[in-house]
């Protein structure tokens, strides 16, 4: 049986919101029993993607969902913006490619940290990035 619950819906309008996203995601990770390493990976990915939403997407929302599939728990983060979109996703997912003066690891880094990664973008309409993190991989 699969159940999906949306726990939080956060706005990303200014820099301090990135910190709010990190804190909220940390609380969720702790509450579902993620190990310290799992928590850190999740929060770091959230930070990268929230910054992307703010800087590239001109702001948007972050949704924190909890999915349960018979016994296993997935924390899913969905970042949505109505910004300019990503013209070349292939290029945006390349290490070191940056359009905002970062290290160019926002998207590709988040993809590497996550267990599941999904990207939808339409030029001129916006971008949706979804990442899933499973708990307790070491204990399976």
């Amino acid at each position: 049986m699969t159940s999906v619950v949306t726990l939080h819906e956060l706005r990303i309008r200014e820099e301090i919101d990135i910190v709010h996203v990190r804190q909220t995601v940390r609380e969720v990770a702790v509450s579902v029993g993620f190990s310290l390493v799992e928590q850190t990976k999740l929060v770091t990915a959230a930070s990268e993607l929230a910054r992307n939403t703010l800087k590239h997407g001109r702001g948007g929302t972050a949704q924190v969902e909890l999915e349960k599939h018979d016994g296993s728990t997935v924390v899913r983060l969905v970042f949505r913006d109505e910004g300019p979109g990503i013209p070349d996703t292939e290029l945006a997912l390349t290490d070191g490619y940056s359009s905002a003066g970062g290290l160019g690891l926002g998207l590709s880094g988040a993809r590497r940290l996550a267990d599941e990664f999904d990207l939808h973008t339409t030029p001129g309409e916006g971008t949706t990035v979804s990442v899933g993190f499973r708990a307790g991989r070491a204990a399976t």
Partner: protein
Amino acid sequence: MSATSVIEMGDVLLVTVQGELTDHDAVALQQDLAANVAERSSRGVLIDVSGMEIVDSFLARTLHDIAAATELLAAKTVIVGMRPEVAITLVELGLTLPGLATALTVADGLAEFGDGVRPL
């Protein structure tokens, strides 16, 4: 929200970063440090990150830039006390920060600057 302190230990600056750092805080820290090092002709900067729960690519870039800037001012930057989970995540992100000096403890970090500096 974040508490960043800068202490002068002889000719080394000890920077302690704690809590949640916004991107703005990070940039401000970078600028402060460059000004400080130039003004006091410091030999080095120790950045104690043991209180940081995450280091994302923006913060990693800031640390890297601080090191590069202090080097131009003839000083050395050493990152001290990074937590295991933060180190694992950075490596997973693909950020191995080559060339950045690191140390386990503040005492080890001070030793990197050779004689003339003693831990308090």
